[in-house]
């Protein structure tokens, strides 16, 4: 249940950007969340609703989550494969000498402001 801690970090970052851009209300925060980032999207949006509504800047603000599929690269046969389906073992050559190419992102992509 680290989603609440993550939400506090998102709010901190959004507040800073809003201040730099002289924005007094944000209507949507778009996140890029990797499939194997260990974040559960529904927990994140629940925590977001609870915490965001306490802030004037973020009252009623949506949290949109784009899921980034996880992809692993095999160092032996140099082919890519789906991490969630195959885990650490390459389905092409059965090597375990593999590493995560993408899919652990926890990024704030953009803020949307309605005027």
């Amino acid at each position, binding site marked *: *249940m680290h989603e609440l801690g993550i939400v506090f*970090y998102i709010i901190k970052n959004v507040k800073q950007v809003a201040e730099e851009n002289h924005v007094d209300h944000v209507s949507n925060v778009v996140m890029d969340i990797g499939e194997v980032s260990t974040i559960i999207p529904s927990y994140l949006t629940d925590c977001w609703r609870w915490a965001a509504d306490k802030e004037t800047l973020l009252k009623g603000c949506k949290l949109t989550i784009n899921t980034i599929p996880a992809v692993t690269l095999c160092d032996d046969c140099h082919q890519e494969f789906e991490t969630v389906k195959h885990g650490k073992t390459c389905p092409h050559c059965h090597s375990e000498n593999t590493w995560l190419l993408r899919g652990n992102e926890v990024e704030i992509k*953009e803020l*949307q402001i*309605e005027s």
Partner: protein
Amino acid sequence: MGEIKIIEIKKSVFADNEQDANNLRKELKAKGIYLLNLMSAPGSGKTTTLIQTINRIKDKLNVAVMEADIDSDVDAIKIKEATGIPSIQLHTGGMCHLDAEMTRQGLDNVTTENIDLIILENVGNLVCPAEFDTGSCGNAMILSVPEGDDKPLKYPLMFSVCDLVIINKTDVLPYFDFDMEKCKKYILLRNPRAKVIPISAKTGEGVDDFANWLVNEVKTWRCEK
């Protein structure tokens, strides 16, 4: 409904914390203090392991302990009574982990004068503490035999951030289907750099190895530029 303005950010949520953590590490380096972040699931024997270990190294190093828990101060009191070293309790106020800022606040309450080693006993949890860099100089975790040899497969991030994995409660190995070799293999699969030390905090078996590892880490940290 008017127009929608978009501000692009493209920034990792962890970026600020990582910056804080790097700054904290630099400050610790300047003071010659080694901060160990010790993580594990609840009930793996962190506090007992610490008591055994601290009693073996307190003549060589000045040690302090920071206990992080959601609530209560039982661990800090236990450590202080059993070892006589300074220990403080941090409350995370419901949060499941510590970040660099919380660690810094905790450190402000520890006398850092003449201290060589500070051990941070993180909140008992195998998921969240692995995500947040505390600013520590090294990460270690304790996996206990009753938890099972498959944990490195289930909590890959935790095992991949640790420099040391202690396997505790080896005294109960005969009663569990715990395959030590398999467990070591799983750990190294996640993290080829990890060192694995099996111990029993109850009987004291292997605790010397952990104590030596710690003394050596502190020495190396101080010599590295």
